[in-house]
């Protein structure tokens, strides 16, 4: 064991602080930590872990993200899915009106993936369903992450009674499985894209709140936070400009996973019959429609929407994992 002193740059909003950190590092652990960088071509990190030497922290994160094969796979999958859903309809025109004379047609000319029980083209519906599924998933993940981040940061920063009350509310909501609350709401109101975004956001901010609270508890005792307070910075300024920007790593990773989660929740709601009503579509509802024909061999009603859901969730999980690894690399390089 030998103590190491390192210069460490902390960025908080526009402010930069240079702090020297002295830490005891197990030599074996240190070798292990250094090993991946020694063998990575192109990443010339000087001995001692110089952070600012090879570009900004974010550039390092991006570089190590793209060193990860699964990360690249996730991003490419996502790009393909976005192109399929949003650009696809420009090139592939389909009739999504009900046409009783060609219901449940198998894949063939004119209908590459056949038609559904109402005679609508499956491929065209997959594209519009993809738009709704991706928009609902991404927007509700963003909204829930913002709610959760603010909730967690305020709870952790103020501490005491505020923290107790705010965290007990989180505990209460965590005790009721998400789907149970959602079904309550969806049974009465006719699901629209906006309603689904709101309801999914309302039930999915809890994990983000817990994570950010944990981070805030350790951040609020840091020197730079104390410095801001001593210089007369208000509480909310401290939270918004200094605490939250420093939790951004955890928040971004969590947001990515919550997109995957929101898409799964949406699919489940659709499957249980609480998804978007036709002519709007979401993949879960389409799959639910296919279940009725499970014994008729109408595979084109089941596999395509199912596979698209799995691919989307996989893409966001891959990206989330790769980002978490990339951010950990940044922490190791400090």
């Amino acid at each position, binding site marked *: 064991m030998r103590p190491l002193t390192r210069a460490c740059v902390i960025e908080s909003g526009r402010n930069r602080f240079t702090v020297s950190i002295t830490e005891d590092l197990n030599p074996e652990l240190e070798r292990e930590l250094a090993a991946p960088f020694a063998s990575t071509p192109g990443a010339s990190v000087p001995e001692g872990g110089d952070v600012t030497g090879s570009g900004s922290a974010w550039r390092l994160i991006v570089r190590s993200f793209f060193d990860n094969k699964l990360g690249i796979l996730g991003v490419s999958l996502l790009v393909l899915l976005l192109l399929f859903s949003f650009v696809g309809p420009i090139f592939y025109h389909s009739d999504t009106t009900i046409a009783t004379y060609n219901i449940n047609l198998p894949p063939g000319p004119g209908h590459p993936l056949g038609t559904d029980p109402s005679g609508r083209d499956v491929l065209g519906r997959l594209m519009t369903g993809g738009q709704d599924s991706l928009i609902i998933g991404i927007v509700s993940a963003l909204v829930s992450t913002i709610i959760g981040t603010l909730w967690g940061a305020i709870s952790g920063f103020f501490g005491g009674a505020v923290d107790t009350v705010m965290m*007990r*509310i989180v*505990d*209460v*909501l*965590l*005790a*009721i*499985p*998400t*789907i*149970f*609350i959602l*079904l*309550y*709401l969806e*049974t*009465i109101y006719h699901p629209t894209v906006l309603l689904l975004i709101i309801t999914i956001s309302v039930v999915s901010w809890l994990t983000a709140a817990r994570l950010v609270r944990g981070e805030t508890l350790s951040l609020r005792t840091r020197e730079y936070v104390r410095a801001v307070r001593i210089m007369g910075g208000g509480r909310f300024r401290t939270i918004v400009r200094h605490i939250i920007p420093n939790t951004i790593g955890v928040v971004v990773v969590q947001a990515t996973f919550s997109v*995957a989660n929101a898409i*799964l929740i949406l*699919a*489940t709601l659709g*499957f*249980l019959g609480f998804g978007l009503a036709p002519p709007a579509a979401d993949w*879960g509802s389409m*799959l*639910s429609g296919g*279940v009725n024909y*499970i*014994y008729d061999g109408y595979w084109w009603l*089941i596999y395509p929407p*199912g596979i698209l*859901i*799995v691919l989307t*969730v*996989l893409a966001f*999980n891959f990206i989330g994992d790769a980002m978490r690894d990339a951010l950990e690399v940044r922490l190791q390089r400090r």
Partner: protein
Amino acid sequence: MVGYTIRRILQSIVVLVGVLIIMFILQSLLPDPARAIVGVHASPAVVHAFIVQNDLNKPFYIQLWHYLYEIVWQHTLGTSYKLNESVGSILKRDAPKSFLLVGVALLISIVVAVPIGILQAVRRNRASDQAITGVSFILYAMPTFFLGELLILLFSEYFHVFPAEAPQGSTVGQILAQPTGLILPIATLALVNFAGYSRFMRSSAIESLAQDFIRTARAKGLSERVVLFKHMLRNSLIPIVTLIGLTLPAVLTAGLITEFLFNFPGIGSDYITALTSQDYPTALGITLIVAIFTVLGNLLADIAYAALDPRVRY
């Protein structure tokens, strides 16, 4: 330890009361179910009588107070609006079946995921590890109902080995009397849980393997099997206890979907029927039972964690 346990129990009761408050607020936001329950042909007087009888004209906190009063003094959870029986008797009949389904699936997934996770950690980054990681990644990304449908297509549509519908019956005994019908629902749930647990177990085992006591055990000349399945297993099991507590809501949600998909006569199916017919007392009773089990699971996990790991002190 005793003080910690008492504090956690009190906290759990507060959480459960909070659950009830939230559910009553939610219900008060929903439209009045009276017309839907008594039917379109009922006279306004009948609708009014229903409203008065069920406190629907009172604010939610009065309704909550009556509900709590009934639980504590009359040991009842109210009467179903739709089925002519008490919510308590519905739960008594159907909850054991659901816990059979969820419990067996949970047990199987843990018994399979733990050794597989350890083997993956030992053979890290080899072909077998990567194959299992790939499978669990895909299972993890798969919605429960899609996995269930694939199993139905494979095992009852193409191969005709297992029936696609769960056994029907009002008691656990009747359900167990038709074991082939249980295989697909249990397999679906077990696979869904397995995906999460094996990924977690792998990383937990990798962490344990790097620790000093493993090196000591090997240096003492213990056989690899003793090192892995005695020394390491015990230490990697501690985080899995917490994980089971934390994942209970997800496990119960998957249970609800599996019940719906296979038409299993448990509280998950009851819940969806109750909601679509605006039978709020039944839905509320089921939500409460699920919340009690979630809170109890977390409580037991925390206490077990403190009991299993001598380093944890509160």
